[in-house]
């Protein structure tokens, strides 16, 4: 067989022209850090029992002692009583900075180092989800290294030649490796399940639900007593794990596989009680978002357009002043009361009423982003309309990017 080296060379060069999935990386990084932050905050009330002097976990001596294993088990080796507190606080700060994309490379290194140190101390609480998160955090450092160097090259207008391409390639390599890592999980898990008699005979779930630590009384009562659910659930898991590694690379199958996988892992989270494992695995699916879909999500959550808010009352003016304290990127402005229209520089304008104003304001301020889902629910349930005339009555938005019009089609039709 003749190997065409020119084609291989071209293929490699094509992966270095640009970062292939920047929006997917942003979403993945934000979601993974958010997951870790929530996980740490949940454990925070019992911090002393997990990482502190009251902890009942002891240091596990490993055969492989080298620079990495030593650096990643500083906390586990330490007998100091309040040492963990600094690790915990630093991890939370790094995660928050990382979520908002501040110093992403430094944050990725800190998050990796601190998370593994904390986890190595509380090792009895770990499961496969934590293991996968650790590995993906390492790949994230590789990705961020590629992205950060290129960002600096662009910023200082350094000749963007082969160095630029090399770091593009590095970011793309890290991203592809992260995807392959998830596939490896399913390949190994699926293939080894084929060796187990309980999986082959379709009764594995019966034993899973009868293991108290990984079950729930309701699951024992309703699922473990149903032969159909036991057999269907066991084979569904087996078929899904065997099919995922191959089908996930075909885009049309992703639409089916990702919801199926999320359902499977939510079942593991809520029924089996492995909350962190279930959510960690679901976060991993974000790696398989398409770039187009990911950029639509980012633009939807982070509109680049400026919002002009009309504040006729003193209360609304005060509320807007308060909001403006957190508006670091200056995306919210007050509209001149006499004009009640978009300033002349507007290329296009769109109007928002009632709860929509709240949603648009929170979308533009990262610190208020967690409120968006709540406001969305208020909007869907029509509760939001009750506050319609309370504070704001007219708002105009200047649109900078034409594709953003597509996101609010219903509003465009309304206008």
């Amino acid at each position, binding site marked *: 067989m003749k190997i065409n080296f020119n084609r291989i060379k071209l293929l490699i060069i094509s992966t270095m022209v640009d970062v292939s999935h920047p929006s997917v990386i942003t979403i993945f990084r934000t979601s993974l850090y958010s997951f870790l932050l929530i996980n740490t905050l949940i454990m925070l009330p019992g911090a002393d029992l997990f990482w502190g002097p009251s*902890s009942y*976990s*002891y240091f596990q001596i490993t055969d492989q002692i080298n620079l990495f294993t030593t650096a990643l088990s500083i906390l586990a080796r330490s007998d100091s009583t309040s040492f963990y507190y600094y690790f915990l606080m630093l991890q939370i700060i790094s995660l928050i900075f990382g979520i908002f994309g501040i110093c992403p490379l430094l944050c990725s290194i800190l998050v990796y180092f601190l998370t593994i140190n904390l986890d190595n101390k509380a090792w009895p609480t770990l499961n496969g989800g934590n293991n996968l998160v650790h590995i993906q955090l390492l790949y994230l450092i590789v990705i961020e290294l590629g992205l950060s160097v290129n960002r600096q090259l662009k910023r200082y207008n350094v000749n963007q030649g082969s160095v630029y391409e090399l770091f593009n390639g590095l970011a793309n390599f890290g991203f592809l490796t992260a995807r392959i890592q998830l596939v490896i999980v399913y390949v190994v*898990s*699926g293939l*080894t399940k084929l060796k187990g008699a309980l999986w082959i005979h379709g009764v*594995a779930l019966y*034993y899973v639900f009868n293991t108290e630590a990984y079950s729930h009384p309701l699951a024992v009562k309703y699922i473990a007593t149903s032969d159909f659910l036991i057999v269907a659930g066991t084979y569904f898991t087996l078929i899904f794990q065997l099919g995922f590694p191959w089908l996930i690379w075909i885009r049309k199958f992703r639409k089916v596989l990702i919801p199926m996988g999320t359902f499977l892992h939510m079942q593991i989270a809520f029924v089996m*009680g492995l909350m962190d494992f279930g959510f960690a695995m679901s976060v991993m699916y974000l790696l398989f978002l398409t770039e187009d879909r990911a950029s639509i999500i980012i633009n939807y959550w982070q509109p680049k357009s400026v919002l002009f808010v009309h504040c006729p009352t003193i209360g609304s003016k005060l509320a807007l002043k308060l909001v403006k304290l957190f508006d670091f990127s200056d995306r919210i402005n007050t509209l001149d009361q006499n004009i009640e229209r978009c300033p002349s520089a507007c290329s296009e304008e769109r109007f928002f009423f009632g709860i929509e104003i709240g949603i648009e304001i929170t979308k533009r301020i990262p610190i208020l982003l967690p409120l968006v889902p709540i406001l969305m629910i208020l909007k869907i349930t029509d509760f939001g309309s009750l506050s319609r005339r309370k504070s704001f009555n007219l708002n105009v938005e200047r649109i900078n990017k034409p594709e953003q019009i597509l996101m609010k089609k219903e509003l465009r039709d309304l206008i």
Partner: protein
Amino acid sequence: MVLFYIGPDNPFSERINKVAIRYIIPLLEQNWALFAPNPSTSNIKFGYKCNFNGQGWTQIKDPCASILERHYSNRFGYSGKLYYICDSIIREVHNYLYSLKKEKDCEQKDAACIKELEETLNHSAQYRTAKRFVTDLCMLEAPKTFISLSTKFYFIETFPRDFSKRNLSNNQNKPYLIEFK
């Protein structure tokens, strides 16, 4: 290489593993076969007893049971993590004892070997952690004044009915119990 290292055994894995282990263990350690091939077919329970001033043993209690109940009622709290710590304390002692028995392979009448095994176990981090945990638990229910405290703890393994016998009412599997003093 990662796939060969963590995948099912094959003719290449033994040779490749020697190289792979050098970088996989420190940075990319993983074992997805943990989820397979078969799920656990038993439940581990932790039992403990206290004796204050030599006045008799208290009733056997399971410290993990109430944590598990909390985990059942609220999946979003940290009780689940706490339960895994509680569960791991007794599980680790048992696993260590199992590995010691395998390593020393003492005969039943070999008192010296058994004594050595017990001493090794008593000095292990696993046993000392479990003993500290049980002592802390006993201190919570201790009378205001006491001179001496003795503790015992148990590894209890219960087995659910086999799938094929799930509908039979009188076919409960016998639990397996080990006492640690």
